C-alpha cells in the first residue's frame, strides 16, 4: 500500500536530518556539551566548601571560634604574619588574617580575581564578627534566613541550570534546524522542484514540523536522561505539561527560524543571523546569568526574547518554578499560534503560487 505523501515527507525529512552530521550535532549533542560543562560547574557551586584562611593572633583573647562561626572560613593557624605571607607566596593559601586585638591585617594573593571577591567578603563579615565580639555587642536585629520553594520541590542551582539548557535544546531544534534545512533546500533548488510537485504547501510544512518535533523529543529525552542519571537533578516532571511545552516552544522557535528564512533570501545570511540571535538569547534570557545582574537596557531586551518564556515554561513543567495556570496557557498558546501562523505563511511564500522561482 502506498504511503501518503505526507508520511513520506516526514520520513524523508527525518532521515535527511539524521544523515546531516552538523545538524545532528547542533540539535542533539551541542546541548549535551553544555550539560556536561555547566552541570559539573553548577554541581560544584552547590556543594559549598569553606575557604581556607591563614590566621595568626598576637594579642587578646582567642577569636578563632568567632571567625569560624562567621560561616565561610576554615582556619589554618600560623605563628607569625610573615609565615602567612610565605604560605600565600608558596600557594598553600590565598587569604590570611593577622589580628592583634585592635588591628585586622588581611593578606591576599595579588592578581587573583577570585581571591579579590573573597577578600571583600572577609573584610565585611570577619571584621563585623570581631567588632561584635570585642564590644560584646547585643544585636538589635537578629537575622534569620528562610528558604522556600517556588515549585513542587526545593530546587538547587543545578536544577535551574539544567532547565535552562533544556530550553536551549528546544531553541536549537526549532530555530537552527529550520534555518539550516530551508537554507539547504533553497541553495540546492529543492524548493523549486517541490513547487512543481503535486504537494500541498500545508502538507510540506506539516511534514517538516513533525520531523522537527520528533528531533525535539529525542533532544529533550537525552538531556533529561543525562541530567537525572549522571547529575542527579531533582526534577518533578509533569509529563503532560512538558509535552505541551515541547510542542508549543518548538513551534515558537520554528516561527522565529522561518521569519529569518523569509526575510533573508541568502541562506548563509539567515544562518548567521540565527546563530547571532541564539547566542544573544543564551546570554540575555536569564539562562546563565540572572537578569538582575544585567544593566537596565539589557533587562529591557531580555523581556523581548522568546527563550526567556520557553525557560519559564520548562521550569514550570519540571516543577522547579510554578506559574499561574492561565499564564502557562497564555505563553504556550502564543508560542504555538505564532509557530502555526509562520508555518502557514512560509508554506504560501516558499511553495505557494506567489512564490518566485
Amino acid at each position, binding site marked *: 500500500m502506498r504511503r501518503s505523501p505526507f508520511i513520506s515527507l516526514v520520513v524523508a525529512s527525518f532521515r535527511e536530518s539524521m544523515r546531516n552530521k552538523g545538524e545532528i550535532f547542533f540539535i542533539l549533542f551541542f546541548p549535551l556539551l553544555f550539560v556536561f560543562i555547566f552541570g559539573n*560547574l553548577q554541581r560544584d557551586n552547590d556543594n559549598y566548601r569553606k575557604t581556607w584562611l591563614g590566621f595568626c593572633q598576637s594579642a587578646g583573647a582567642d577569636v578563632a571560634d568567632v571567625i569560624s562561626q562567621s560561616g565561610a572560613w576554615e582556619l589554618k593557624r600560623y605563628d607569625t604574619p610573615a609565615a602567612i605571607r610565605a604560605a600565600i607566596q608558596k600557594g598553600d593559601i590565598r587569604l590570611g588574617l593577622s589580628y592583634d586585638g585592635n588591628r585586622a591585617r588581611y593578606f591576599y594573593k595579588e592578581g587573583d580575581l577570585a581571591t579579590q571577591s573573597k577578600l571583600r567578603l572577609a573584610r565585611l563579615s570577619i571584621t563585623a564578627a570581631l567588632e561584635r565580639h570585642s564590644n560584646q555587642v547585643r544585636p538589635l536585629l537578629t537575622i534569620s534566613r528562610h528558604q522556600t520553594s517556588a515549585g513542587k520541590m526545593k530546587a538547587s542551582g543545578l536544577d535551574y541550570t539544567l532547565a535552562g539548557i533544556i530550553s536551549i535544546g528546544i531553541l536549537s531544534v526549532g530555530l537552527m534546524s529550520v534555518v539550516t534545512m530551508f537554507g539547504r533546500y533553497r541553495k540546492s533548488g529543492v524548493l523549486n522542484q517541490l513547487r512543481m510537485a503535486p504537494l500541498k504547501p500545508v502538507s510540506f510544512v506539516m511534514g517538516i514540523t513533525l520531523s522537527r518535533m520528533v528531533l525535539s523529543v529525542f533532544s529533550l529525552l537525552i538531556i533529561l536522561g543525562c541530567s537525572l542519571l549522571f547529575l542527579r537533578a531533582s526534577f518533578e516532571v509533569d509529563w503532560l505539561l512538558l509535552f505541551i511545552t515541547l510542542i508549543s516552544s518548538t513551534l515558537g522557535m520554528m516561527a522565529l527560524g522561518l521569519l529569518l528564512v523569509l526575510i533573508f533570501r541568502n541562506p548563509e545570511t539567515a544562518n548567521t543571523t540565527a546563530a547571532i540571535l541564539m547566542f544573544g538569547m543564551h546570554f540575555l534570557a536569564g539562562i546563565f546569568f*540572572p537578569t538582575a545582574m544585567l544593566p537596565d537596557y539589557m533587562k529591557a531586551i531580555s523581556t523581548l526574547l522568546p527563550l526567556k518564556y520557553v525557560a519559564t515554561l520548562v521550569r514550570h513543567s519540571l516543577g522547579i518554578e510554578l506559574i499561574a495556570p492561565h499564564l502557562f496557557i497564555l505563553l504556550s498558546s502564543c508560542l504555538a499560534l505564532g509557530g502555526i501562523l509562520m508555518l502557514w505563511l512560509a508554506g504560501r511564500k516558499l511553495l505557494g503560487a506567489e512564490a518566485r522561482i
Partner: protein
Amino acid sequence: MRFWRFTRSFFLAEIREFEVVFWSIVFPLLLYVFLSAVLGGNGKAGGMSFNLGVVRNSTSAVGTMAISKTLDAVTGSEGPFVATPFASLEEALEQMKSGKQDVVAELGGELIPSSQSFPVRLHSISGKESSQVATNILELVFDKANLEVARLSDHGFKGIVIDTQAVAGSASSRSVDYKDYLFPSVALMMMLSVALLNSPLSLGFYRSSGTNRKIFTTPLRPLEFFAAHLVKLLITMLISLTLLYAMAWFIYGVRDGIFGLGFFLTLLLGMLSLISIGLVIAAIASKESSVMVIGQICYQIMMFMGGFFFPVMDLPWSVKWLVYLVPTTYLVELLRRGMGIQTMEMATIWLVTVPLAWMLISAGVFSLNFRKVMGHA
C-alpha cells in the same frame, strides 16, 4: 611575487565572507562588551537591581528606626534594591514565588526574649541565583546595621582598624579588574575561531570542491598554497587582535603588560599552537560537516575549560582533567601573568611546554597527512 599575489587573493576571498568577519572579529568583541557590562563591576552593586518585598510587623520605635534607616540606605538611588511594601507575608511570598520579588524581608515583630532583639527574617527561593545573591547582600547590610547602632549608642565602642597587604604582586600592585582578566580570553577566542573553524573549513572546502586540484595544475606548488593559507590566517588574527587592542586601550583602559615582549611572544605561541590543532582537524575530518562538528566541540571545550571566563582550578576531577589537557588553560594563564594576574599555581615552564608540545605533535600529525589534506594525493 606570485606567492604574495596569491596570498592577497586568498585573504580577500576569505575576508569577504560575512561569517568569517563576524565569528572571528565581531563576536569576540561583542562578548567582551557584554561580559564587561555584566561582570565588570568588581563586586560593586552598581548596575545590579533586585526586587525586595518588605513586610513590616509592628515593633518598637527603636526597632522601627533602625530598620527604616537600613532600608533607606539600600533602596535609595544608589542602593541595589527596589522595595515594595506588602501588608502580609503570604502575599509577599506569593509574589516572590511568581518571580516578581527576588527576596522578601519580614521586619520587626515581637522582641525575641533570649536575645532582646528584633527579628529580621529573610525569605528566598532555594536554588535561584538572583534570590540567593539578594539575600546575601541584605544579610550583610543588616549585620552592618547592628554594628552601626552599637557604635552610635556606645561611646566606648572600639572599632577594629582594617588594612590589607598584597602578597607576591607585580610592581604595579593594583587590584584586578574583570576587564583585564577577560582581555587575554577574548584574544584567544579570536584565535580559536580562526584556527579551529575557519582554517579547517577553508582547507576542507578547497579540497572537496576540487579547487586545490585545479590550482596544482598551475606552477603554484602545494607548499606555497599551504604557506599562503597560513599567512592568511595570521593576517586575520592580527586584524582581530588590533581591533581588540584598540577597544581595550581606548574604551576599557586596559594597560598593564599588554604591549610587553613576553605578551607578544605568548600571543605568537598561541597562534601557532592553535593553528596546528586546526590543521589536525582538517587532517582527520574528511567532510565539512565533520570539520564543523569536531571544530565546535574543541572550540567550546577549550573556551570553557580553559578558564576564559571563570576560575576552573576548583572544578571536580570529573571535568578537571580537561582543564589540564587543553592548551588554552596554559596560554591564557601565561598571558594573564604577563599582565600581573595569576590564577594558577603552576611553574611558568609548564605554561610554555604544554602548548609547545601540542604544537609539535599537531604539526607532526598534519605533516604525515599533508598530501591528503591538500587533495594532492
